[in-house]
């Protein structure tokens, strides 16, 4: 129980960008996941990733879609994006 609450607290303490990068890390590698979120945040919103809010999530995921589709195909990419959408918290 204590472990679960610590994990929840970590998620809450993380920014949206950090949470997305953390979800993508196991697939893209930590360095590349952070870079991808930073790049798409700047190119799509013209802002630093730290300023992203939960309202920006659908548009950001739309930006990540082509990359994931290329690397693992449509079905797996959609699955990853849905997982991020459900697990990332404000």
């Amino acid at each position, binding site marked *: 129980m204590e472990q679960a609450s610590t994990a929840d607290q970590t998620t809450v303490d993380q920014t949206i960008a950090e949470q997305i990068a953390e979800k993508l890390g196991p697939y893209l*590698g930590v360095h590349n996941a952070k870079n991808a979120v930073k790049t798409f945040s700047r190119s799509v919103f013209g802002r630093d990733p730290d300023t992203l809010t939960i309202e920006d999530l659908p548009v950001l995921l739309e930006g990540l879609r082509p990359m994931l589709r290329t690397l693992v195909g449509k079905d797996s990419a959609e699955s990853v994006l849905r997982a991020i959408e459900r697990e990332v918290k404000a």
Partner: protein
Amino acid sequence: MSFRILVAIPLAWVAVFSVLDQLVSGTAGYRIFMRTEIELVKGMALIGCLAAALAFGRGEYMRRAWLFMGGCMLFLLLRDLTMVPAIEKSSLPIAPIRGSLVILANASLIVGILLLARAWKVAGLMLPGTRRQRWVVLLIAIFTAAALGGPGVVKNLIELLGGDLRALSGMAMSLGDSISLCLIAPVLLTALALRGGLFEWPWWLLAASLLSWLIYDCIWELGLYLGMGEHAWRSVCEMFRALACMFEFSAGLAQYHIVKRTKKDTQTSTGA
């Protein structure tokens, strides 16, 4: 599935081949042993490429890339089929058929490698290093490929201009090798960009395959000049051909498992 197994398979294959090569060498069955081994590794590479391609949906970028990679092995296997005595002795125009199949194989290889080498750009990945560093890596690859494949291209071009049409397939092979060797650079950089993540595996294994082809070409061209005996030269060449094909098999299998595993993992994590 542990991806380390996919690294171990090509190495284990080569270890077994080396032992058998020593045991069978000099016997009446040696030619058959070598021929069988060559066709087996090509067949395995084809299986790997097909597995990778079929993991993707119809029309997807990587499906196309892997299908072209597999196309190379398919055409080479068809070419090898023309060495079967019954076909060789038939009234078919064997030389032009062989030449055409080699050209098709190399065209397929070039398109496949080009597609894989461009995947980072299509995906919007950022490659590691500065622009200058990436150019240095690319130039080293181009220089190495030109040094190894260049003489073959020039030799075959001279023969072709002299009216020997058989040189066309030799030129296709040398050109195919040179271009695919140049493309080691972007494949390696893609592997580096994805390091630490699940998606890195097919790229490292593919880079290992291309690197094995590079060494194969190097020994093929220079082995005899370096004083290697005829048998040692053929055996070492065959070891690196086997490594190249088996790493391609492993890369394809890694790609297949990653596509499937990513979908399964994310569905499990969301309880879908």
